């Protein structure tokens, strides 16, 4: 069935043109990249843009490249691109591990990483991982270009720092000091394509600096700074992990919904923190489970 409402479709040739059309069209305009969220949302009558600006005809937006000590992802980089990129496998295998949990090939071939954070559903898979990687989001708008640190990006469920007329032009991800280890744990009801019930990404660098972020257990994916501070510089032990687990409830605000109860989510986050910390450290030390191994 066609989407119920009519809208104008604009295929932009450049980012500047996209911004211009978006700005002119006002608040009811939406950017169309992979469309895997926008199209079903329109079909479900959940959003009603009057103008849709397709950016897929713009050149070179699907590049993954190394810029100094940063990995750059163009706004049209899909989850499949993350899975096949040697650069990603080599420098930031955590991105690959995360991408592997997203939906299924038919979605991953279209869905973009930038689109995932623009949709900003609380369970978005890219969220926790980009948070621990301290990515920044480059945007272009009527007032020019600016950069938004990922931690300021998520404003609420399906709400971001993106302003009217702006379009994401890329993600810049600092590659942590070597050696580092990281893991994305995603609790899902089904082993196959499913949304996250609760997720956590843990990253640890050589000097036992931990970065931890949770997804699907609060209105937005969020960093667990208090747990990070507690763990900073300390060597993992059963006791330390147990103490860190006590801090989990302060870091998350889970709710009960279709996919899980608040209680289950909360407790599972403790389990995932335990497994995540151990796996991240062992990966850093070169003896952890291979990236892509499911530990939950």
């Amino acid at each position, binding site marked *: 069935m066609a*989407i*119920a409402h009519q809208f104008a479709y604009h295929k932009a040739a450049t980012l500047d043109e996209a911004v211009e059309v978006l700005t002119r069209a006002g608040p009811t305009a939406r950017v169309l990249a992979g469309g895997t969220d926008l199209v*079903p949302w329109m079909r479900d009558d959940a959003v009603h843009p009057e103008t849709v600006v397709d950016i897929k005809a713009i050149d070179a937006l699907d590049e993954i490249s190394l810029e100094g000590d940063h990995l750059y992802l163009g706004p049209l980089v899909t989850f499949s691109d993350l899975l096949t990129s040697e650069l990603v496998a080599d420098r930031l295998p955590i991105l690959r591990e995360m991408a592997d949990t997203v939906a299924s*090939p038919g979605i991953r071939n279209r869905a973009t990483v930038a689109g995932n954070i623009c949709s900003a559903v609380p369970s978005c898979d890219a969220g926790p991982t980009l948070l621990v990687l301290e990515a920044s989001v480059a945007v272009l708008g009527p007032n020019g270009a600016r950069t938004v640190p990922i931690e300021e990006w998520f404003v609420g469920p399906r709400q971001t720092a993106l302003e009217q007329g702006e379009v994401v032009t890329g993600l810049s991800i600092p590659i942590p000091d070597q050696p580092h280890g990281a893991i994305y744990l995603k609790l899902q009801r089904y082993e196959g394509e499913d949304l996250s019930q609760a997720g956590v990404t843990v990253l640890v660098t050589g000097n036992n600096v931990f970065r931890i972020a949770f997804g699907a257990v609060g209105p937005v994916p969020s960093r667990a700074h208090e747990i990070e501070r507690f763990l900073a510089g300390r060597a993992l032990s059963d006791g330390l992990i147990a103490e860190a687990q006590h801090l989990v409830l302060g870091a998350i605000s889970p709710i009960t919904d279709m996919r899980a109860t608040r209680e289950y989510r909360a407790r599972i986050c403790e389990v995932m923190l335990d497994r995540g910390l151990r796996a991240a450290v062992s990966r850093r030390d070169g003896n952890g489970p291979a990236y892509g191994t499911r530990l939950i």
Partner: protein
Amino acid sequence: MKLPINVTVNGETWPLDVEPNEILLDVLRNRVGAKGAKIGCERGDCGTCTILLDGRSVRSCLMLAVEADGHEITTIEGIPDNGVLSALQDLFISHNSFQCGFCAPGIVLGAHELLRDNPNPSRYDVQHALAGNLCRCTGYEPIIDAVLEAAGEDRS
């Protein structure tokens, strides 16, 4: 307002005029006659609408028809080569890899993509690649077996 597009479907070029709000799946079925792409959920959850877009599996229910402009599409109708079924299709028959058959076109297309990208998949690879294509009838086992056999893997 109708927009002119050109899509190639199973090797034939189709110039079409489409409204921006038309879904590719509907256009393929109703205007091109490619009925092998099925309507199962219309929100990206089931995979029955799977097509290959420039060789990669996508869900045609999640695409506007206008987005297909200039692209090459393969549906199940385009898989046989001069009327000869692919080896995988033959194996689907010998393994009873379908029952009602409604999921089969999408799964065959997804499996073709997998085997092209990964000619020696493990059982897990096959399961993982097809995890977005729902089948209520078969329990998947005969599907996985057929794909593995197509890959030449000898499974005992």
